[in-house]
């Protein structure tokens, strides 16, 4: 890995924050950048490991798709599903206008 590619800049952190739907305010941007840089610098130790021809593992129990018969089962009611909604209207979750 090239070091320049992994250099953590404020713009990079702001971009990743945007992708994560987070705002990092100006007061904490410096500390986020410096922690981030230190962590990435440490994580770059991974590049030293020889992983040629090694298959990645994404789960440890050899999972395959788990299917079930398409039979109607009891589920939560509309009322229950909406119990924790911060804003609702009729039988729906309410969100700010998107169009």
């Amino acid at each position, binding site marked *: 890995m090239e070091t320049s590619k992994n250099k953590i800049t404020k713009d990079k952190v702001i971009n990743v924050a945007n992708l994560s739907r987070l705002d990092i305010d100006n007061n904490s941007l410096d500390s986020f950048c410096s922690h*981030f840089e230190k962590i990435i610098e440490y*994580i770059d130790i*991974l590049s030293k490991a020889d992983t040629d021809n090694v298959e990645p593992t994404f789960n440890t129990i050899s999972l395959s798709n788990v299917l079930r018969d398409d039979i109607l089962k009891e589920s939560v009611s509309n009322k229950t599903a909406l119990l924790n909604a911060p804003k609702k209207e009729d039988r729906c979750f309410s969100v700010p206008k998107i169009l």
Partner: protein
Amino acid sequence: MQLHTLTISEAHTLLKKKEISSKELTRAVLDRISAVEKDINAYITITGENALIEAEKADQAIASGNITPLTGIPLSIKDLICTKNIKTTCASKILENFIPPYDATVIKKLKNAGAVITGKVNMDEFAMGSSTENSGFKTTHNPWNLKMIPGGSSGGSAASVAASMCLGSLGSDTGGSIRQPASHCGVVGLKPTYGRVSRFGLIAFASSLDQIGPITSNVTDCAILLNAISGYDPKDSTSVKQNTVDFTKSLKKDLKGIVVGIPRENNELEGIDPEISKKIADAAEIFKSLGATCESVSLPHMKYAVAAYYVVATSEASSNLARFDGVKYGFRDTDKTDLIEMYKSTRSKGFGDEVKRRILLGTYALSAGYYDAYYKKASQIRTLIIQDYKNAFEKCDFLISPVTPSAAFEIGEKNHDPLLMYLSDIFTLSANMAGITGISVPCGFSSENLPIGLQIQGNHFMEEKILNAAYKFEQATDYHTKKPAL
């Protein structure tokens, strides 16, 4: 008799003989909580009234001859396991008022067994941390020394057991979050094999690593709680079909002929406290005196484990925590009229700094141009870690190692430096990467009278073996009988 200091099995015997009632026992635990909570800060929600109702039901069940090993036993629950009609916050402002409309499968199982829930206990927000300092609400204190951290992320669980504020607890372990606080608080904590216990209703941090497990004051109680929560659950497609095992049955087996593996890397690590190394060497001698032999083994990829773990765990977390968007549940910043701005503001106000840091790190590791260098590479190293364990378990029955590089540190000592905090998980997180089981059992005290834990790791679904080893070790020592002076 101080009822709150009873173990689960002691209390069960007395309940069965009708020498005590669950109501008396539950009252004693609630009184204890009232007396020491101000010092410990273990509980986020205390469900005293509910607990007494459950206790009464348990007493009725016992009177009619229906008693399980957990009937009428007061337990605390880490606040990321959903409890129907009881607030479940994940110690996060974003879920401060979340009341689950359903029970997690483990809670259903505990209720069916007649257990009494005393409340929901503190943790690092979304289980991200090693000290409970990342809680959005309060910092839990170590009952052995109130200036010290109790460990994390299941710090409230471990502290509540150590301080006799419940008879046992459920925690969760993604990289050591059961074993590490158990070690720091001088209690027993077991991370089951991935797939042993249903994760349905556990609010996810990193789905391929998370497991729910027991934290108790001794190994027998640990086996009792594991019995109650284990088993296949169709609601968790990663749970594994297993034969029903009674974990209390294998505890007393002889250790003659057993081979204990000691990873060479235990002592090669920079920064490990010599006091800890000494206790692990002493533990090896105890196993020898019990008839086992010790063999040196190697886990050569352990040096990459922390880095690989933090890539995998944060990547999964960044995806899992996308659900907290202020729409379906939890906090929403209602001032924002634009959808994207609402998401951003809600999440920025709702999540604490460590959670944000991990979401950022995970998003970065998964983003275009970095995936191969980080997520894929870390997942390949995961394969190598699994291979290391496979090789080791060909030579030995279980592995012994420290749980932590040092005894509990002071509150505030490491929370300014996330990386330093991450490195304290070095001995525990490989088990999660490999999906194997591990237990922490008390193995001594530091010169400052802080508990030290011994980690025993076993291959997939070898809980019986490590519980047997932990029990024999416990019976050969008296550390589990010591209680903090509070």
